[in-house]
């Protein structure tokens, strides 16, 4: 199949150029041979001619060598040895060397030419192999269809992809591989034209089409399998998460319900025998546990929103400082004695987010900080806006998270070993991370004093583009 496409315009142009130089060379050799013959050096004349034929064969291949041999035979026997064929005095002594010369010229032209062709084929095969090796090493790293398209794009010119690879795929490949390959080829052609083409030195002759497309096809199949596997893993993880949440529901819902039910029943049956303080205490238990249930359902709602994804339509400019003030007011209810150190600009810091979800993010982190620090401890909240990002840092000096656990704080249902007696469900930071990432931001946790107490959470969100200067009246 490759032979069908190898002769190209470029090839024939090169061939024309080389043909002119071959003819010039042949004429020069003929003149030299004639000169030698004219000065009574017949052996030199024949040798010059033979060497000329061999050179042509060796440099221009079998066809050129054969033609040079035949022409040299004719010229030598017709013009040089016997100008005008006028001499009728023909003898065996005349014919034997002539025949010998003709035979030697043909033989040397043929042999040199074949040798040249072999060498050329070997060189072509080597370059085809080079291309295949280089391409396959690029494909090694490809895990997505996009990676394959990129590898193809940087290896071959758009011309080769468009006029050789694409038609070959259309004509010779069969479903289901074909559609995947067509996608890759289309993507490679649509790829950024400025991407560096490391493979520009490869030309059409270097492409062993069947082998190259086979390689491509295998890579596409492999990526298909990888994608399926990733999809299945993601689905499995999501299922696992749902199962874990359902099982945690039994604990996180039933515990407060049990407390509420016990308090309510106790009040109903024994309130007459209880001192006023006990009755108040039991009513407070009910209130407190209801608040806990409310927070948990809010987290479940957030979790549902997270699973559903955050659509661009739900995003709007939101002021981080305003939402922090709001979240802080709500969080204070859970830890009224904490010392809050606030360090944020008095001007709005605007990011693109869903305001309610961002408030939930900030509340979750603050609630977490409050529940891991003793009353009276300091919680630092700092907001800065620079180089296109809003940075929100919330740092507590509570019990902290030990070295290896810090990598897991954003995982669902992760609870620090210290947190046995707190009421967290282990969903707060997980939801925070999910929302922040849905807004195109990042969230990270670290120990401010390596391995020591405290936890510092940093959220980075891209600042919303300012909509012109604000006119302030009066």
């Amino acid at each position, binding site marked *: 199949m490759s032979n069908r496409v190898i002769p190209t315009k470029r090839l024939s142009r090169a061939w024309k150029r080389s043909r002119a130089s071959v003819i010039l060379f042949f004429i020069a050799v003929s003149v030299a041979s004639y000169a030698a013959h004219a000065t009574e050096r017949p052996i030199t004349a024949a040798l010059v001619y033979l060497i000329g034929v061999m050179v042509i064969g060796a440099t221009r291949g079998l066809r050129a060598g054969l033609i040079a041999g035949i022409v040299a035979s004719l010229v030598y026997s017709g013009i040089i040895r016997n100008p005008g064929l006028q001499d009728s005095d023909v003898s065996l002594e005349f014919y034997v060397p002539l025949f010998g010369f003709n035979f030697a010229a043909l033989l040397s032209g043929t042999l040199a030419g074949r040798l040249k062709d072999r060498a050329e084929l070997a060189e072509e095969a080597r370059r085809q192999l080079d291309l295949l090796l280089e391409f396959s090493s690029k494909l090694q790293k490809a895990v997505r269809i996009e990676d394959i398209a990129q590898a193809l794009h940087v290896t071959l010119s758009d011309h080769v992809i468009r006029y050789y690879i694409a038609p070959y795929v259309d004509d010779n490949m069969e479903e289901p591989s074909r559609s995947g390959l067509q996608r890759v080829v289309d993507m490679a052609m649509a790829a950024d034209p400025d991407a560096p083409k490391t493979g520009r030195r490869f030309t059409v002759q270097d492409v062993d089409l069947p082998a190259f497309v086979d390689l491509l096809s295998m890579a596409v199949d492999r990526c298909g399998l990888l994608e399926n596997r990733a999809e299945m893993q993601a689905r499995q993880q999501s299922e696992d998460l749902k199962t874990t949440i359902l099982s945690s529901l039994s604990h996180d819902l039933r515990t407060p319900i049990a407390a509420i039910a016990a308090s309510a029943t106790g009040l109903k049956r024994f309130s007459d025998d209880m001192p006023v303080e006990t009755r108040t205490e039991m009513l407070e238990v009910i209130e407190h546990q209801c608040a806990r249930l409310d927070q948990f359902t809010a987290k479940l709602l957030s979790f549902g929103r997270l699973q559903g994804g955050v659509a661009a339509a739900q995003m*709007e400019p939101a002021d981080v400082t305003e939402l922090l*003030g*709001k979240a*802080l007011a709500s969080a204070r209810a859970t830890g009224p004695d904490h010392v809050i150190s*606030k360090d944020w600009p*008095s001007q*709005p810091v605007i990011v693109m987010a869903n305001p309610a979800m961002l408030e939930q993010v900030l509340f979750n982190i603050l609630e977490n900080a409050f529940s891991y620090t003793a009353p009276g401890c300091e919680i630092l909240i700092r907001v800065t806006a620079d180089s296109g990002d809003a940075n929100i840092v919330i740092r507590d000096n509570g019990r902290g998270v030990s070295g290896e656990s810090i990598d897991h704080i954003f995982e669902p249902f992760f609870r620090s070993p210290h947190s046995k007696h707190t009421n967290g469900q282990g969903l707060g930071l997980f939801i925070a991370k999910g929302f922040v990432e849905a807004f195109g931001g990042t969230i990270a946790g670290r120990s401010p004093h390596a391995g020591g107490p405290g936890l510092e959470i940093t959220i980075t969100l891209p600042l919303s583009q300012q*909509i012109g200067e604000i006119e302030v009246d009066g």
Partner: protein
Amino acid sequence: MADQILIIDDEPAIAQTLKPVLGAQHYSVTTAASAAEALRRARQTAYDVALLDLGLPDADGKEIIANLRAFNCRSIIVLSARHQETEKVAALDGGADDYLNKPFNVDELLARIRAALRRSQSAAPAQSFRSRELKVDFATHRVQFMDEDVKLSPKEFALLEALCRHAGQVVTRRQLLLAGWNDPAADGQNLRTYITLLRQKLEVDPSEPRLIVTETGVGYRLMATLES
């Protein structure tokens, strides 16, 4: 005559709890468990306040807001367990006066009912607003915070006036944009900036506002309680 309150909620526990609580505050309470029943009752009686749950069995609560208004229901407070801001905004833009998330605190509910009654029962538009910390004269534009004069720009004053006239009730961003810029589609960034400026002048701690609080995704609420 006692103020008439209509509770529209299909959850019996809500009616069962609120009826005695509101009754103890000397309100006259009627309940309706469906949209049809609510409209039937509203046709007969002009209620002062309707507490409307959005998730009714026979209709979306939002759909009956206009009808309740047509039957001279003076004030509608939406009770919502579906905490979707867009839904609250839709109900408020559709004619509701306020909203309260379920679960709610009884004190909070009573404050909202009082704010709604105050606004719907004043015969003529008020000339001024007075609360413990804030005094605003709508005619002279004089504003006093903690008994000290505060100088406000015309836009700041327009926004503060809108908030004061709905004291205790939520005012949507759309309403505030109309009040300040006569254009509900004006740039929300401007509104945010002016609210920030107002807070710097009228809040003890502008980073944690207590007077002009944010109703996330909906609007703002002036929390001042009126001087009796």
